């Protein structure tokens, strides 16, 4: 599937960081011993099925659960009204949760097709689903809002009456001298672009098993949500239990791609049902639950963009006006646009930015997280308009990009929004991509095949790949934020046992298809000179846990590296003291070499880590009084580089500083009769700072690119005019398979971050942050001779043909 070059080891003194070691997670998953939530069972466990709303917008007049309750095997039936008594609203970081209140089940009215109306708790999922069919709900249908533009019209039906409109957020930000740059520009390139909603599709849906003990008041949960740690106390609040009575234990997430980032609803539903029945309760979404009611649909944006350009290709300023259709609720506020603002000008020296975002509510499932978290949409928008600018001024699209690159000597580089780019070498990445993408070859092929009536297009894009978010991006939107959170820690405990064996404990990171165990094993192996496959990795539930945030915003490897470095430093300090005592020498005369401490210049006088460890574990009285037994240390690692926004928000501060970069070259062929797109070639070059494991990063790039191909060509959550979700199973929600994804030539470049351990930057989302832009630009390149251009994703065959038809219908000239 991919060709991965092996990068030169940037730092020859590193032994494990930078090596494509086999993933330590694989053996258990390949043997079917991963222990997913579907395999998790407790004695006496009951099962939940959810009755989903068939209406997009309707008042609930009455619910009759009599028949359902009397079905044999049913333990409880709870309606939205019951849930509103049993639970407080869901944890919500939206602009004004009191006005757009989100609950685990709809109360009084339903706001989208698929919203939960009632739940049945029964001896089996089969019986629960039988009983769901027996619930009789009377609905009074209300006017439906599907088009975000219609939701903006005054007098439109309201999704949330207390909000008084369907606009949950509307603000315009000016960064830099926007009007000056536009006044001085030679021309302004305008574009109107539409990115339609799709979403991450995990093989295993979200599930939670909750076990409430009425005797102790303890609620023990086992779930595959990936954010079970950071805002746990809010889930406890929803369940009306003290936070220290809620213990959430991670199960492998399977896949997430963001879609399990803040998956709290299944835990609330399972917890509520366990409290009512006094028995363990499992709620696992089925596919329709997941697609229609997962709270993790992706961005759904309309853009009006203006780019101020000089004739020589200099990009001066950009005005971005975006309407984002959030669906019926808005759990993260407009944090997705914080992601966009982190890298809003791409790799270019664009001096000023105006950014208006309107968050509109409609009758759809709400947005959550999807690989890129909104930054991928900005990348696509920017590259489409930059490419259009190149065409309008008649400049080579590669040269226009190169001309505007931020140069290596300009880092750290503050972009107009206030965020910083820590480091980069964009020309080097571009050069490598031109080579791997066989750019010149395909340009000549394009001409040759055009003579045969074939339509080849080449899309080259250069985009940013932000990593390691700071929580400020969730609240700098407001002058007076409700919760100006700044802590996004990640913790690791390292234990050296009496034999010198290394165990790392993680406090988040339920395996979500990434390689957290491999990362931590490689990082610990680097510190202690052991084989990564000999490092044991364990997970801890929240009740015994240390502060941790979990994956999101490509932060895991950077944060784990910081935590491992910190914990190993403490262990090594203690081990050095112990070795010095054992060797009867000053600690300053010791150096760490080959898995132990030795006297500088005297390799014979040394103590291995195992020798030190056994002494510290078992021979306390061989040491001075102040030395404690054991060799175990923890590190709570906080975000290494965050600054606060200015009061007037003309400067948002540093909130996403470790800036990766990539260049993708997509070569497409468009069948102009059918609108079908295929890939004769595809190349991706990424710079995520120092590489920890080139092969696992390549896996990220391939998977993310495959998802980007889905976003570009296939995937769309389609709501029809009545608000029915017509793509509610994999029969209708189309994803690319191995048959649609081309072989991808992958290249790596390493520009270490000056601010992180080993110089690592995050790289978990890069493929999807690049591919939609590359493919759209490529298709436009293929269609350019026909005068056609596509401005809507996904580029379905019909949309491509419609663009060609529209071009044909225009008078020539």
């Amino acid at each position: 599937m991919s060709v991965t070059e092996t990068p030169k080891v940037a730092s020859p003194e590193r032994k494990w960081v930078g090596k494509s070691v086999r993933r330590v997670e694989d053996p258990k998953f390949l043997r079917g011993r991963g222990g997913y939530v579907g395999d998790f069972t407790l004695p006496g466990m009951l099962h939940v099925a959810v009755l989903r709303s068939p209406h997009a917008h309707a008042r609930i007049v009455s619910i009759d659960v009599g028949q359902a309750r009397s079905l044999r095997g049913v333990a409880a039936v709870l309606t939205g009204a019951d849930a509103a008594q049993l639970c407080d609203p869901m944890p919500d970081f939206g602009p004004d949760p009191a006005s757009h209140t989100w609950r685990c089940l709809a109360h009084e009215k339903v706001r989208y097709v698929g919203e939960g109306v009632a739940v049945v708790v029964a001896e089996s999922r089969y019986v629960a689903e039988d009983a769901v069919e027996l619930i009789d709900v009377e609905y009074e249908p209300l006017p439906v809002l599907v088009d975000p533009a219609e939701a903006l019209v005054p007098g439109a039906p309201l999704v949330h009456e207390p909000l008084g409109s369907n606009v949950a957020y509307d603000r315009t930000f000016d960064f830099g001298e926007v009007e000056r740059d536009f006044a001085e520009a030679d021309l302004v390139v305008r574009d109107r672009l539409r990115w339609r909603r799709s979403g991450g599709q995990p093989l295993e849906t979200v599930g939670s098993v909750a076990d409430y003990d009425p005797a102790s008041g303890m609620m023990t949960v086992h779930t595959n949500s990936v954010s079970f740690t950071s805002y746990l106390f809010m889930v406890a609040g929803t369940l009306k239990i003290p936070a220290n009575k809620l213990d959430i234990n991670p199960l492998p997430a399977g896949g997430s791609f963001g879609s399990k980032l803040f998956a709290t609803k299944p835990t609330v539903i399972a917890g509520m049902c366990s409290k009512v029945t006094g028995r363990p309760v499992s709620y696992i979404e089925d596919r329709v639950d997941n697609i229609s009611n997962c709270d993790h649909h992706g961005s759904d944006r309309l853009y009006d963009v203006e780019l101020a350009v000089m004739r020589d290709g200099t990009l001066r300023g950009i005005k971005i006006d975006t309407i984002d259709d959030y669906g019926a609720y808005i759990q993260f506020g407009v944090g997705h646009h914080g992601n966009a603002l982190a890298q809003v000008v791409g790799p270019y020296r664009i001096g000023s930015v105006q950014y208006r975002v309107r968050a509109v509510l409609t009758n759809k499932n709400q947005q959550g997280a999807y690989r890129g978290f909104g930054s991928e949409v900005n990348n696509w928008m920017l590259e489409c308009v930059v490419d259009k600018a190149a065409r309008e001024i008649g400049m080579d699209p590669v040269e226009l990009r190169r001309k505007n690159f931020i140069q290596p000597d300009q880092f750290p580089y503050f972009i107009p929004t206030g965020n910083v780019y820590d480091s980069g070498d964009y020309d080097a990445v571009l050069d490598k991509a031109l080579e791997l993408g066989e750019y010149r070859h395909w340009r000549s092929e394009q001409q040759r095949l055009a003579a045969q009536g074939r339509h080849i297009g080449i899309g080259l894009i250069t985009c940013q790949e932000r990593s390691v978010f700071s929580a400020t991006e969730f609240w700098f939107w407001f002058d007076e934020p409700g919760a100006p959170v700044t802590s996004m820690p990640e913790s690791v405990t390292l234990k050296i046992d009496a034999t010198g064996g290394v165990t790392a404990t993680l406090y988040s990171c339920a395996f979500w298809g990434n390689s957290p165990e491999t990362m931590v094993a490689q990082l610990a192996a680097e510190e202690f000179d052991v084989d990564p496959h000999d490092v044991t990795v364990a997970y801890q539930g929240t009740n015994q846990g240390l502060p941790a945030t979990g994956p999101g915003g490509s932060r895991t490897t950077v944060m784990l590296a910081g935590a491992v470095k910190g914990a190993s430093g403490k262990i090594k300090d203690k081990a050095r003291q112990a070795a010095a005592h054992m060797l009867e020498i000053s600690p300053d005369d010791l150096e760490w070499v080959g898995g132990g401490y030795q006297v500088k210049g005297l390799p014979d006088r040394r103590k291995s880590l195992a020798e030190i460890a056994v002494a510290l574990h078992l021979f306390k009285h061989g040491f001075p009084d102040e030395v404690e037994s054991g060799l175990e240390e923890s590190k709570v690692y906080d975000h290494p580089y965050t600054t606060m926004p200015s009061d007037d928000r003309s400067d948002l501060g540093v909130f996403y500083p470790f800036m990766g970069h990539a260049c993708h070259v997509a070569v497409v062929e468009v069948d102009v009769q059918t609108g079908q797109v295929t890939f004769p070639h595809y190349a991706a070059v990424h710079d995520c700072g120092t590489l920890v494991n080139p092969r696992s990063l390549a896996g990220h790039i391939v998977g993310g690119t495959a998802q980007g191909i889905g976003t570009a060509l296939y995937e769309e959550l389609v709501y029809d005019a009545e608000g029915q979700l017509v793509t509610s199973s994999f029969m209708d929600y189309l994803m690319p398979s191995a048959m649609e994804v081309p072989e991808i030539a992958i290249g790596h470049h390493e520009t270490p971050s000056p601010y992180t351990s080993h110089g690592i930057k995050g790289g978990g989302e890069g493929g999807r942050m690049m591919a939609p832009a590359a493919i759209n630009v490529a298709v436009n390149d293929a269609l350019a001779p026909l005068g056609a251009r596509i401005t809507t994703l996904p580029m379905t065959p019909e949309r491509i043909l419609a663009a060609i038809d529209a071009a044909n219908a225009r008078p020539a000239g």
Partner: protein
Amino acid sequence: MKPPPFYYAAPATVSEALSLLSEHRESEPRVLAGGQSLVPLMNFRLAHPTHVIDLNKVTELSFLRSDDGRLTIGAMTRQAVLERSAEVRLGAPLLAEAAGMIAHEPIRHRGTVGGSIAHADPAAELPAVALAMDAELVAASGRGERVIPATEFFLGPFTTALEPDEVLTEVRLPAAPGTGYAFVEFSRTHGNFALVGVAALLELDGDRIGRAALALCGAGPCALRVTEAERLLAGASPDGDAIGEAAEVAAAGLTPSSDAHASGEFKLRLTRIYVQRALETALARAQDRR
């Protein structure tokens, strides 16, 4: 996504199956073959059969016989067998080509020839092949056996000439030596339902097209034979516009329905393009075979 309770029986012989169907006639039992359509329908609760008769243990229905180029295929023969069988490649290359386009490989290892034809999904490949090849479909019931020509078998979406107590037991395909063939289809992704599929057979008679057979799937309420286009092709010169005209004629009068993947208008456009592509390929192969 769990089905409601249902009665289930797994007979070992055709006669046992037939007597079960007759016994439970009042309950309108559903016959389970490969289960690649019925089981999802039951899990989605879109189909609520109270009685399911499973044919997977009826080994006598799983066979493939070749007799002077005539193929007889047992209804429970897995679709994957068609792809790999030398007899099918030789005797009915159209069928082999179409079989490779049915869904994905794992599905073809469960899905059966008879199941696909009896289910009569408008987008399915095998009904179109059966039509183009003038297949004879053998139906059995407690009342005996009858042979239904494919042209009389497909009545509408998911509707066939089979009576409730009948089971499709075998598919008979006539020999068609020296014929150019092509099965082409357009689907959004590999393995997905075809928006439009075309089965084409074309014989040459000297320098002219002799007989042509053309059947479509996806473009109508069920698989259909487009005889007007066939008549237009018969006797025509392959060098002229006959193929283009046949494509126009084949699409004329069709009103494919719109769905999540395509508008009816787009399917119509695809029908013209794919009929043309199928005929061009079939013609080239017929010319190759000379």
